[in-house]
């Protein structure tokens, strides 16, 4: 039931200029759920850029959300550099083995060739095809994994985090190679007409400390953000899990929008960094979107709107992380419908308001 009066591109442009819009931007982060729209298996996406594009475009057209993200899993770049990825028949892929298992082997690693290695060419093909199909009405982003996270897939997470304390220069070496690879891939993504969208999952303070993020995460992210800015695009940065104590640092990377996991609070994010960055979030992907009812989804959306609709740099209603594959379509519809009901300027049912203030 789409009653939208503007295309996503028109909506974002007007929102950015502070002009009237029909509703807040809304992005249920659809990843492999797109397979369900076209009746494909998740593993069919492997190496098939055409299918990834067609599924993502079909999902966008089905739900009417505001950003298409070409994404299957976080391992694409690490795989192209030698990590082994396991592809279950119909579920999201997972890391089977890192590319190397010792510090000595770091020198054997090379940045990936985005037009040749692993599944990168297929993903680039998907980006280019999606841009051609609907790029004039909706922003198409290409998932780009942050250097620290890719480094963790290259040598193994436990090894990497131990090295941070025992051999920091080895970690910097790895991050530097991962950054080179990411810069080359970012360039190729930009060439398709797509905007890179950054995820650096392992930088979460659920895993590492703010001090470690400052040393091993932030500098590499900053260089990526700078590179993308030079090419005239704005950047969204997502870090999973707890991030409150690094919001300032995440903003310092220059990212234009922070995508906040449901493990953190949107209202607090608004207070701390809302004058510097747009916020995106943060309905729980598993507890609410996968397991909840449409009415729970609606309530969760209202909660996000109450907390952060007045964010100085703007708010995008979104899931806190990529949606699980089997997220019910009814819950994705409910997220969009709730945002449409709330409208613009935002209006939340009086009864709900009273309940919230009490």
């Amino acid at each position, binding site marked *: 039931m789409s009653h939208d009066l503007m295309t996503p591109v028109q909506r974002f442009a007007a929102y950015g200029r502070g002009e009237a819009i029909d509703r807040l931007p809304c992005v249920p982060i659809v990843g492999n759920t797109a397979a369900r729209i076209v009746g494909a298996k998740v593993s069919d996406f492997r190496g098939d850029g055409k299918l990834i594009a067609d599924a993502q475009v079909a999902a966008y057209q089905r739900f009417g959300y505001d950003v298409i993200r070409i994404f299957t899993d976080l391992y694409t770049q690490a795989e192209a550099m030698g990590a082994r990825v396991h592809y279950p028949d119909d579920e999201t892929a997972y890391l089977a083995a890192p590319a190397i298992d010792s510090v000595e082997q770091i020198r054997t690693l090379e940045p990936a060739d985005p037009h040749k290695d692993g599944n990168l060419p297929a993903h680039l093909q998907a980006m280019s095809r999606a841009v051609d199909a609907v790029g004039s009405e909706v922003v198409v982003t290409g998932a780009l994994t942050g250097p620290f996270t890719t480094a963790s897939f290259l040598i193994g997470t436990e090894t990497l985090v131990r090295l941070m304390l025992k051999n920091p220069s080895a970690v910097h070496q790895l991050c530097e190679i991962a950054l080179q690879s990411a810069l080359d891939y970012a360039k190729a993504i930009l060439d398709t007409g797509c905007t890179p969208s950054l995820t650096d999952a392992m930088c979460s303070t659920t895993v590492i400390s703010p001090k470690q993020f400052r040393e091993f995460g932030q500098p590499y992210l900053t260089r990526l953000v700078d590179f993308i800015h030079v090419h005239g695009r704005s950047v969204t940065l997502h870090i999973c899990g707890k991030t409150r104590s690094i919001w300032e640092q995440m903003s310092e990377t220059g990212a234009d929008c922070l995508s906040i996991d449901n493990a953190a609070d949107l209202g607090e994010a608004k207070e701390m960094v809302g004058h510097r960055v747009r916020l995106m979030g943060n309905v729980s992907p598993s507890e609410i979107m996968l397991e909840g009812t449409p009415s729970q989804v609606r309530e969760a959306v209202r909660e996000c709107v109450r907390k952060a609709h007045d964010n100085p740099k703007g708010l995008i209603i979104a899931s806190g992380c990529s949606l*699980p594959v089997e997220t019910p379509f009814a819950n994705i519809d409910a997220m969009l419908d709730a945002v449409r009901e709330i409208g613009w300027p935002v209006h939340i049912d009086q009864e709900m308001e009273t309940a919230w203030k009490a």
Partner: protein
Amino acid sequence: MPANETELFQALSDAVVGMDEDRARELANEAVERGIDAYTTIERGLVDGMGRAGELFESEEYFIPELLLCSDAMYIGLEILRPHLKVEDANQRRFKVVIGVVEGDTHDIGKNLVRIMLEASGFDVIDLGRDIPAQRFVDTAISENADVIALSTLMTTTMDAMAEVVDKLDAANLRERFKVIVGGGPISPAFAKRIHADGYANSAPNAVKLVKQLAGVPA
């Protein structure tokens, strides 16, 4: 070197908190040479240190990297001291936990932290590793005569594999024999309840509290 037992225990505890493997090795050997009771050295030195590290983790002064290095120091000490445990201490029946990451997932840091903290709290832990089929949890729990099956996952796609373990126990009429506990990124208390698990914890320290509760020992 520390003048007396109490100082040695303290120094060993400090070595664990300070992530100092060499110092932990040195002090554990020293305790053996002096003939200090191994069980007491483990409890008041290594376990005490890991407990303090766990508190620093809870208060967000330590993060996963620090906790892992603390556990490295603890395990080095344990390896030296365990062969010197008195027979009755070594053979003492302890509450036993079978732990692993369910099939389809290889994220195991969270599971490893829970294992470390459980071992540091005196529980017997059988770590099956990651990407473990449901049947193996059941088989191992039976063969090891375990008390608890602890299941971990970071991925929403593999949450159902947790329900499968419970279902298999049900089907084999073994549900009453083992407590099943679950945890990991996408897991919620509501999910734990829905699959009829006996407990849920949102962090490694809380997993220890949960197992203590199930074992009936004071937290």
